[in-house]
């Protein structure tokens, strides 16, 4: 299968969906010139009306996307997680709440592509990994791709989904390569990855590791290292956090009796906290050891590489976490 770079997978998904459906359009800052790469060539192919460069008014243009989605369009919005704070009004009070509040009258097929730049000296203002905060608010579908394959397949599914979706694109993966099948190789002729279906990245018997977005790679590296010692790790990538595939996680813990959750977000009230609490509540009798959360330290992201590298989950922290469950 062809190797594709993560950012190219995003670009492929957008192009395929915009070709498929006239109602799909994209807006964001400096996307015509593809400052962040993912929107390359869109303006040339789709023109001014479907590729909109916006002013620096996230609350305004996020809301415009939401409003357009209410009346038949299917907008894709490009942004960074760190720019969503200024637009929380529209994301929470409108996108998340509108449908329920209006008794189901509103349908909002809008996709927010939010890149998480972290790990490269972006400092506190540009390194947010904020999906846990959005998980607490009902009404938003939360997508966390960990590979070019899932990125493409989940984004295409999101564009066709009729609810507001936020795709948290892990900046540490932007340059990552991975296999993405040609559409010709695919039965349906295209790549669609369903929501709410976890991916069992690797089967194992001794410990279940649930890893999110960029953390999946650390889990794989840790599992490789421990394999040499005969420790068999099962790795689960939820792929979407809302909806969350609880069953796959609980079934795995039933088999392994142990759980480590690896989450690039801040640890307090993180996705790791949620998953750990679900297992403590619904999978308690399967657990043979304490649950371990490997998440980012509860501190802002320092600029200096000397400190930033200490903050996030990494292979060694995952290895240590797995060992802890096996003590």
């Amino acid at each position, binding site marked *: 299968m062809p190797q594709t770079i993560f950012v190219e997978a995003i670009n492929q998904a957008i192009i395929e969906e915009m070709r498929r459906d006239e109602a799909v359009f994209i807006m964001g800052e400096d996307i015509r010139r593809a400052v962040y790469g993912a929107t390359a060539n869109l303006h040339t192919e789709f023109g001014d009306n479907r590729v909109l460069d916006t002013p620096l008014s996230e609350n305004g243009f996020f*809301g415009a996307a939401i*409003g*357009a989605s209410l009346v038949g369009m299917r907008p894709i919005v490009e942004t960074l997680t760190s720019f969503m704070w200024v637009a929380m009004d*529209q994301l929470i009070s409108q996108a998340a709440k509108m*449908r329920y509040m209006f008794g189901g009258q509103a349908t909002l*097929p809008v996709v927010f592509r939010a890149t998480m730049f972290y790990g490269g000296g972006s400092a506190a203002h540009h390194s947010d990994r904020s999906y846990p905060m959005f998980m607490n608010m009902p009404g938003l579908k939360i997508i966390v791709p960990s590979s070019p394959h899932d990125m493409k397949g989940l984004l295409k599914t999101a564009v066709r989904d009729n*609810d507001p979706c936020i795709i948290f694109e892990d900046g540490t993966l932007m340059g990552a390569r991975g296999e993405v099948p040609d559409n010709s190789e695919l039965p349906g002729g295209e790549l669609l990855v369903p929501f709410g279906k976890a991916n069992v990245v690797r089967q194992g018997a001794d410990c279940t590791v649930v890893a999110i977005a960029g953390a999946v790679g650390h889990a794989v590296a840790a599992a490789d290292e421990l394999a040499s010692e005969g420790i068999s790790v099962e790795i689960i990538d939820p792929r979407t956090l809302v909806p969350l*595939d609880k069953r796959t996680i609980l079934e795995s813990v039933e088999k392994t009796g142990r759980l480590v959750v690896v989450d690039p977000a801040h640890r307090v009230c993180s996705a790791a906290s949620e998953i750990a609490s679900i297992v403590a509540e619904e999978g308690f009798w399967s657990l043979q050891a304490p649950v371990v959360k490997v998440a980012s330290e509860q501190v802002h992201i320092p600029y200096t590489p000397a400190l930033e590298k200490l903050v996030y989950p990494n292979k060694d922290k995952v290895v240590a976490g797995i060992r802890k469950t096996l003590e």
Partner: protein
Amino acid sequence: MDINKDRLMLMLRRMWTIRHFELKVIEVHSAGEFTGAAHPYIGEEAVAVGACAALNDTDYIAGNHRSHGHPLAKGGDVKRAMAELYGRKDGYCKGKGGSMHLADFSIGILGESGIVASSVPVATGAALAAKIGGKDFVSLVFFGDGASNQGACHESMNLAALWKLPVIFLCENNQFAVTTSYKDSVAVEHVSDRASAYNMPGVLVDGQDAIAMYEATTEAVRRARSGEGPSLIEGLTYRFEEHSLGLGRVRRGEYRTGDEIEQWRKRDPIVIHTDRLVAQGIATLEECEAVRDETMAEVDEAVEFARNSPFPDESELFEDMWATPIPQA
């Protein structure tokens, strides 16, 4: 005045509908028939009615917490609106929205927002859809003098002006935000003066005069449909009642003098409209009184309808969360 009689009478009818609706709401709310906040539109009827009379059914509106007048002015169903306030199954939102969140997407009512100014970007987005989708509908959003100080208004007006979107920003300046005078919240003399910051037309209109509101909106709609872009209309008006039902703590006299209130009550938009119709021989007083009585009866029926409508079943709690259902884990 080249407005035909039907439309003029429809305007009268809608103003009366809103008036009776609000009077009834005050009555049944204080009788405890339902709870929660409700923000009476009494005194401001001409603003929404005049504006909506300039729109088609295929045009969109969005509103705010002072939320009964807008949908009724756009032709919303009195029964379903009342049932919503009662939290019943037959309400516009099946009881899930309540007073502040009336909506009827089938006739272009994109819903009222409890968070002030929050529907301004949304309405701007509907206009964006018209532009890039090549449709000829327009979008109109109601917001208050207080709301005009939210960043959302700035961002939306700038966006709409840049992209020449078919949207009408309609500021209902009733001169207060709860207890705060707009003179203490808007740094410029009139909200409509701010239009110059986006080089779009801004007009100050007598909000007690339904016909003036109709004419100003008609011109804004013309601009919008012909691709000339957005307009800002400020309807200067006055809230005859308190900010919200259940805010008894805020005694009127404390921030508005009884005298000021009396002066404004003398400029009742329904009386002004009726007098003109009669004076100009467009309608007889009897015709006008018939409209008043018919709408009162309609509102009474709506209350009966609401009272007899069932509460939603507990099984409905999780309905209407998702348009694309999520797998049940």
